């Protein structure tokens, strides 16, 4: 009862501020977005009764099936929105030419507040439209899909996340800056961009939409929702809605994970630690044998096998080789096998490159990451193949012999000095 009064007060405040100070209403709404919206919409006579919702369990163990039931006004579609409390980063670089002006905006959209899990469940009869989006491949649009199935009004949880915009410039990218931060977007624009970020984060249509809501003619509905393994732990919120104004009370369930499953905060994914451990071990061994760092094989495999963002994979694999490189340098320097002048000169130019590269990682999508990586691997395979040709082997044999001789000389010299 107390809560209802609270809502009424907020609703009146919102109504007043809309009339008096249109500039302040955004702040008032932000303070109590759902409540204010629901209370405001509850007044008009044409509003639809919000659907009821029941959940069959409140806790699952690393995924499971949740059954949601309830009643909505007969003949109305019911949409069920589910999102997790854990937040991850999502970013998208907009370099598509504008439809009207033809100019490329080069704006980087970035948020830290994307739910690690987000999915909207729609009535079963919308299956065709979802299938159509699946056939569009990488070109599917989340906002178009929502519109097609009539769920754009039900889309709410990610709509209000805080999105930062950066105006990227060529010069800015060269010096490794994200660019100037642009002013905050209005609610409508924020919602539109949030949909693009949902796509950037979840990549595939079937990840963000399911056609599992079964609706009976009398208005009752039932949805069996499968929460797959390897998702973020924590509280998940479920809301059923008929349209923008008619939303059910939120219900929640909790997803528990336990060892050997671990949640990666930055990647937003739960992972069985033995998977990456064994894969890294195998590739590290193979990498040493073939004479190329494991990163070449590890990174594309990680982004392909697990739903890990390419930025996190690139940024986390890179430091793992620091130690082996450092110990390698130490061993070579002990036998005076490093020319510091040469190494430092080229090293300085590489420092500049290393400054720029990580900036570019976040400007590309996962698909572009895979595509370019594909070509890099072809070049690498070419280089490796060249190293197996007879001419190279002959030359290499001589060089290896000299290398060995030098090493012995160097070791002897180092020993003498030591004594």
């Amino acid at each position, binding site marked *: 009862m107390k809560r209802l009064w609270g809502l009424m007060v907020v609703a009146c405040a919102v109504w007043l501020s809309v009339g008096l100070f249109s500039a302040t209403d955004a702040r008032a709404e932000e303070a109590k977005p759902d409540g204010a919206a629901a209370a405001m919409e509850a007044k008009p006579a044409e509003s639809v009764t919000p659907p009821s919702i029941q959940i069959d369990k409140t806790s699952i163990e690393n995924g499971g099936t949740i059954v949601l039931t309830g009643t909505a006004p007969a003949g109305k579609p019911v949409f069920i929105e589910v999102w997790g409390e854990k937040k991850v980063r999502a970013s998208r670089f907009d370099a598509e030419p504008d439809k009207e002006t033809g100019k490329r905006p080069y704006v980087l959209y970035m948020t830290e507040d994307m739910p690690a899990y987000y999915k909207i469940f729609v009535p079963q009869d919308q299956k065709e439209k979802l299938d159509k989006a699946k056939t569009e491949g990488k070109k599917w649009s989340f906002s178009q899909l929502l519109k097609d199935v009539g769920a754009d009004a039900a889309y709410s949880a990610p709509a209000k996340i805080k999105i930062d915009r950066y105006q990227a410039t060529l010069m800015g990218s060269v010096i490794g800056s994200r660019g100037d931060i642009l002013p905050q977007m209005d609610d409508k624009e924020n919602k539109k961009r949030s949909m693009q970020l949902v796509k950037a984060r979840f990549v595939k249509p079937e990840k963000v939409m399911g056609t599992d809501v079964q609706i009976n003619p009398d208005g009752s509905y039932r949805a069996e929702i499968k929460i797959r393994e390897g998702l973020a732990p924590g509280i998940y919120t479920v809301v059923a809605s008929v349209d923008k104004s008619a939303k059910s009370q939120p219900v929640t369930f909790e997803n528990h994970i336990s060892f050997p499953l671990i949640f990666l905060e930055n990647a937003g994914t739960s*992972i069985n630690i033995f998977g*990456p451990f064994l894969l890294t071990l195998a590739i590290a061994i193979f990498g040493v044998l073939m004479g190329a760092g494991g*990163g070449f094989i590890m990174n594309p495999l990680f982004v392909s096998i697990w739903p890990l963002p390419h930025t996190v994979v690139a940024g986390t694999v890179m430091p793992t080789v620091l130690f082996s490189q450092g110990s390698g340098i130490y061993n070579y320097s002990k036998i005076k096998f490093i020319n510091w002048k040469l190494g430092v000169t080229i090293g300085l130019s590489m420092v500049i490159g290393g400054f720029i590269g990580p900036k570019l990682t976040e400007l590309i999508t996962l698909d572009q990451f895979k595509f370019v990586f594909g070509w890099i691997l072809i070049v690498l395979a070419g280089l490796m193949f060249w190293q197996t040709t007879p001419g190279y082997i002959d030359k290499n044999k001589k060089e290896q012999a000299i290398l060995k001789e030098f090493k012995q000389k160097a070791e002897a010299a180092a020993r003498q000095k030591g004594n």
Partner: protein
Amino acid sequence: MIVEFWGQEFKVNVILGCIGGFLIAVVSSMFGFGGGPFMVPLMTVGLGLPMYVVVGSSLLAIFFNTMMGTARHFQFGNFDLVFFLIMFPAAILGGFIAPQIAKRVSPLTVKRIAVAGLLVLALNLLGVY
């Protein structure tokens, strides 16, 4: 630039070396791999240096890139500590096991397998199959 190595002198085209190193560094830090397999051909074929000069010095040059790349990825929030702590022991362990296996297999065979494996992976990434 003249480079002296164990009493021998080599003339190095430092501009080519720096431009090549820069480009390799951009790509390798962007995609998160070490640039060794590209640096060694650059320095042997491009700069005309013998292998024994290249092995240590190329490692030093790459180390600069890895340090900077790591710092920048960390700055951009791309570093996941838990993920790192899973991979790091595996990478170290791999470094100890590999030399034991290396004695028993021919490097040529490993390289041929690697070529085939890399091509398979590359075609998968390019979406050929």
